[in-house]
């Protein structure tokens, strides 16, 4: 349903293909008429809370700082002033940390909106296998 173009920088989808595409437009927009509407929903509060990742957090700032630092290290990769081993180690550590934090955030959000539960089990296989393999690879 989706295709990539312009060297992969444009993702094109003719129809809504996932929850991220429809969530805001279906819950906040669409035809509604105060005098007639019967809002009779379960789960809406959970869906709308915390979907917007707050940017002004210490956690975010520290990840930004680490990322900038890491990108900086890559740019001066040829410099001989820092021993190779040290640089490699720092880079790997920063990467692992950042990844963990981001995925942890997504998991938290998914739990909040009930996507991890058994009700919508058709969408969750990917999640499960990812967290299992993550557990194994960290084993050292």
């Amino acid at each position, binding site marked *: 349903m989706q295709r990539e*173009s*312009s*060297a992969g*920088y*444009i*993702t*094109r*989808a*003719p*129809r*809504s*293909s*996932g*929850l991220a*595409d*429809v*969530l*805001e*437009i*279906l*819950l*906040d*927009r*669409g*035809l*509604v*008429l*105060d*005098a*007639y*509407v*019967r809002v*009779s*929903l*379960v*789960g*809406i509060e959970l*869906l709308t809370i915390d*979907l917007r*990742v707050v*940017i*002004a957090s*210490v956690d*975010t*700032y*520290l*990840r*930004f*700082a*680490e*990322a*900038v*630092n890491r*990108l*900086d290290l890559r*740019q001066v990769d040829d410099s001989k002033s820092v021993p190779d081993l040290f640089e490699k180690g720092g880079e790997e550590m920063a990467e692992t940390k950042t990844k963990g934090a981001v995925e942890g955030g997504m998991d938290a959000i998914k739990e909040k909106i*009930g996507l991890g539960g058994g*009700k*919508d089990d058709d*969408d969750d296989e990917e999640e499960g296998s990812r967290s299992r393999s993550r557990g194994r690879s960290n084993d050292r």
Partner: protein
Amino acid sequence: MTRLYLYGITHPREVPQRLRDQGVFLVEDDGRAAIVSELDEGPVEATRRNLLAHADVVEQLHEDGVVLPARFGYVLESRDEALELLGLPEVDELLERHEQTCELTLRGKYEESVLGEVGAGLQPLRDAYRAQPSVEIGIALGEAVGEALADRRARDEAFVLGALRPLLLDLVPGNPAGEFAAFDLALLVERNAVKTVEAKLEELAARLSPPLHFKLVGPLPPYSFVRLALPAVA
């Protein structure tokens, strides 16, 4: 009495077999039709499956004609209530206004390398953090990067909108979600202008990517452009 779940409003026409099989049918009244299905007692659950099913119905029907999509969770207590809704003059106006329109959602997202670009002017802080990676300096650097990223976001959004503006009938800016989100725009365009928007986007990508990635979804029914501006009746 049967409660009806409302997907949206359209003109009377044939409902595709696939949707009929899911219980979707029309309640018609003089050139207007409510797209509905019967609903059991109890509230509508806002599950992923239900949300996507709603989107599927309105988007499928929008492929061959105007659909005014209802907000998710709109329940009519009876067939009469559907007819009452269809009788509103505003419904006619909206059907006419959107006869040839569609919505495109355009989201922009940065890849991580944008931090290297916006952080280029922050060399003293970067050096300080590298020399002494403490939490304090890290927060100061991260805050400065966050501010520079916000500036970049505003600049890129203005540039994108400037380029697309001549093609737009209307626009609703949304709230971009996520640290690397750049913008989240609902665009109302003529159905026959979609190809032009796509071509324009290729030009924008040539200029702004990387680090900016675009996602364009549509042609969708005009989700963001069907507000009924009626006073609420107590």
